[in-house]
């Protein structure tokens, strides 16, 4: 199970990577493996704002449908359009081409309250 060192992790198995003012979000290797083959993903439109803990989309596998959560106050600045036709990218490359959305953090929002890789590894064991 891959848990990259440069990411932060939320309890519902989202990962977040901050680069400057932009935060990219996806779901972890653990999550994609548990979901199985992903066949559809429902993502928000650019400009949508979320409060910490809001559901921002849904991931559907052949087995089930699952919510995905935004763990911080943030506004969507980009959506990975490739997932519309190729949701299998989430299974194949969850931390790369399978990213979901990019966010601008809200006033004072940080990733400090999220799990670091060591904590997430323990969380998934």
């Amino acid at each position, binding site marked *: 199970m891959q848990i990259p060192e440069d990411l932060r992790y939320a309890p519902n198995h989202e990962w977040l990577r901050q680069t400057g003012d932009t935060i990219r979000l996806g779901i972890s290797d653990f999550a994609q493996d548990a979901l*199985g*083959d992903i*066949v559809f993903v429902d993502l928000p439109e650019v400009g949508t704002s979320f409060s910490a803990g809001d559901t921002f989309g849904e991931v559907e596998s052949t*087995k089930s449908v699952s919510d995905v959560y935004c763990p911080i106050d943030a506004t969507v600045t980009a959506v990975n359009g490739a997932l519309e036709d190729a949701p299998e990218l989430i299974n194949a490359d969850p931390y790369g081409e399978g990213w979901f959305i990019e966010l601008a953090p809200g006033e004072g929002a940080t990733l400090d309250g999220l799990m670091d890789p060591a904590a997430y590894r323990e969380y998934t064991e």
Partner: protein
Amino acid sequence: MHTTHIRHAHEALGARFTDFGGWDMPLQYAGVLSEHAAVRESAGAFDVSHLGRFSVDGEGATALLRSQLCNDIAAVNPGRAQYTMALNVNGGVEDDIIVWRFDEESYWVLPNGANVDEILARFREAAPPSVTIDTPRDHTVLFAVQGPKALDAIESVIGMRPGRFRVARGTFEGQDLWVGGTGYTGERGAEIAVTHDAGAALWQALMDAGVVPCGLGARDTLRLEMGYPLWGQDLDETTTPLEAGLGWVVNWDHEFVGRDALVRQREQGLGRKLIGFTTPGRRPPRHGYAVRSDQGSGVVSSGNISPVLGHGIGLAYIDSADEITGLEVDIRGTWTAAAVVDPPFLKK
């Protein structure tokens, strides 16, 4: 919890397991979509040891089956299989069943795993003293081998090439073997039972022949592409075969439990029926989603994405016997236009 006798073989292949009617069985290995593709394009093997199987032998066996099951087993010759159902007195489906007719008065009855106890009890209660009922599930494994290359693989492993709905007995590595040219995927192939001692060797021989291990996840998407009903979702004791569009499984030329109720329903007309539908896009319709139409409303009994077609497919009960127009499915809060399609969804 029961599990398959060769569980270790599946664990070695990286299987993920699921509880299926009290049996802990392989759900998937590499993944549902790749396993689905293997069965459509090549050959896949499923361990379906959880499926019921009991033998019915002796004078009066045929009469017993005829009285308990709504299709007429006497209509097929020894050496053949038949799809049939056990109904209750109201005409509801207690189980859908495959029967393997080995000889004039020698059968295997294969109910769904979840219904074995009920169907077995029913047969034992109705059986005359001359009929012997045994439970080979206790000492056999059962594998379904399915796909366009399945028969080649089967022949290379067991030296038999079962025809469609043909059944036979044989041996594998000196152990008893039973085989039927039946399945649940729409592909050619067979279901093969062997005694426990030969189970691991048979599974390994199939793997060595290039057959891909497949789990119950792919089995469900494969059966749905063919529009085959799943008991507990598309059929249950409250639905009749006529409502389910399975009138062809009912043979009216003999007496069986539930016949009177079906005759009444046939005369009075249906209050609801099972329809097939497709939805555009990749978002799966699922069991329990609401449907509506110009004629009436209802609920999805089975739904998913078709891995081959790349869009949604499903079965739904709708409270009208009329031709359905304006069908829509509530997919996660969005009423989505759906096309009424007679299964199979995958035209082969």
